[in-house]
């Protein structure tokens, strides 16, 4: 199933900022770029909107994540200010990446201050991008690839769940032994960023089952560590 070209209205962005002006701005920027937008003024409200549950842990016995989706609404990207009272954007980023149901949502950090150590810290914690304020329309062009990746991954997982149900009914001998060729980085590993799989590969059905089992069953899989990526300013 192909994803059509400019289907950005199906992408939903959650924007988090304590400043009313900046919320208005980012909302306008996102709507101009044809995204659906929800704005909230704090990290805690963001988590509430995402249906975050504090005691949720990744359970190795239930592969493919939890089937009961705690999210009320699907969010394809979170864009958050760094400096906020209470829960900072960094705290929010951490909570999202530590949550098994939310960790696949790409997170982008915005800040009015250009502090390289801050930028590095956020990228290392799993942020996809770091935007300096004031954010421009051209910055938003960098968002789409991250959202597309998630959409494709979610679709793939849904398709694989179907596939696996079918194959469970069939005989087990036909299953190949699970190998881990591992384009995924191991924890505590060398500075090798995982190469993003080209979309054509992901849409094939052949290796999906194996990939899904890698992703689902590996309890040691931490959130990706980004070393050696040039810092974006």
């Amino acid at each position: 199933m192909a994803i059509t070209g400019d289907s950005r209205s199906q992408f939903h962005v959650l924007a988090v900022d304590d400043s009313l002006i900046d919320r208005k701005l980012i909302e306008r920027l996102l709507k101009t770029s044809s995204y659906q937008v929800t704005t909230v003024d704090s990290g805690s409200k963001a988590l509430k909107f995402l249906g975050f549950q504090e005691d949720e842990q990744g359970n190795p016995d239930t592969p493919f994540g939890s089937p009961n989706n705690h999210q009320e609404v699907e969010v394809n990207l979170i864009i958050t200010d760094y400096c906020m009272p209470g829960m900072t954007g960094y705290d929010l980023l951490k909570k999202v990446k530590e949550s098994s149901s939310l960790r696949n949502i790409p997170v982008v950090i915005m800040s009015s201050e250009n502090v390289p150590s801050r930028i590095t810290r956020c990228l290392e914690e799993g942020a996809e991008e770091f935007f300096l304020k004031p954010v421009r329309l051209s910055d938003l062009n960098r968002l789409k690839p991250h959202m597309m990746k998630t959409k494709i991954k979610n679709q793939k997982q849904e398709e694989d769940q179907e596939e696996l149900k079918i194959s469970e009914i069939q005989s087990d001998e036909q299953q190949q032994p699970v190998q881990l060729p591992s384009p995924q980085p191991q924890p505590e590993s060398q500075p090798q960023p995982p190469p993003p799989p080209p979309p054509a590969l992901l849409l094939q059905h052949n290796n999906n089952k194996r990939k899904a089992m890698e992703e689902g069953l590996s309890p040691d899989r931490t959130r990706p560590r980004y070393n050696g990526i040039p810092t974006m300013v």
Partner: protein
Amino acid sequence: MLGWGVDRLRADMSRLLAILFHQGVLDEQFLQLQQLQDESSPNFVSEVVNIYFHESEKLFTKSQGPTCKTDGYCDCRLDREFSDYKKMGIHLNQFMGSSSSIGANRVRNVCVAFRAASEQNNRAGCLRALELLEHEYCYLKNKLHELFQMEQQRVLAAGARYPLQQQQQQQH
């Protein structure tokens, strides 16, 4: 006659904006705001700017009466006691951020200097920066109000023009 008014107003607005950019009162972020304004959001710039003024005024404790009279004299006062530098720093950060977001370049720059003075507990520096800030803020506010008034007049004049044109078209 009305058409001439619209063009004149538009020219005046362009001139005023050019002056403000030249003086560094506004920077290219203001242009970004204008680019975000369109038919679906026709009052975006004035909405955002009015939020800015409304929010900024919360930062100033008022001595008496309304703020920023139209003759340019500003009645706003930040806490002259400077009793709490940390709190002031927080307010300044917010003010700096929102000023930057609307393209209020000179106001933002004074905030930077103000923040530096407060971080050094430099009372004299803070007083000076506060004076500058009041001056810049009031100037900005007056000029932007002028701009929006011209815009309103232009819209009214343009609206009054169309019924004439429609009548002419119906006669054909």
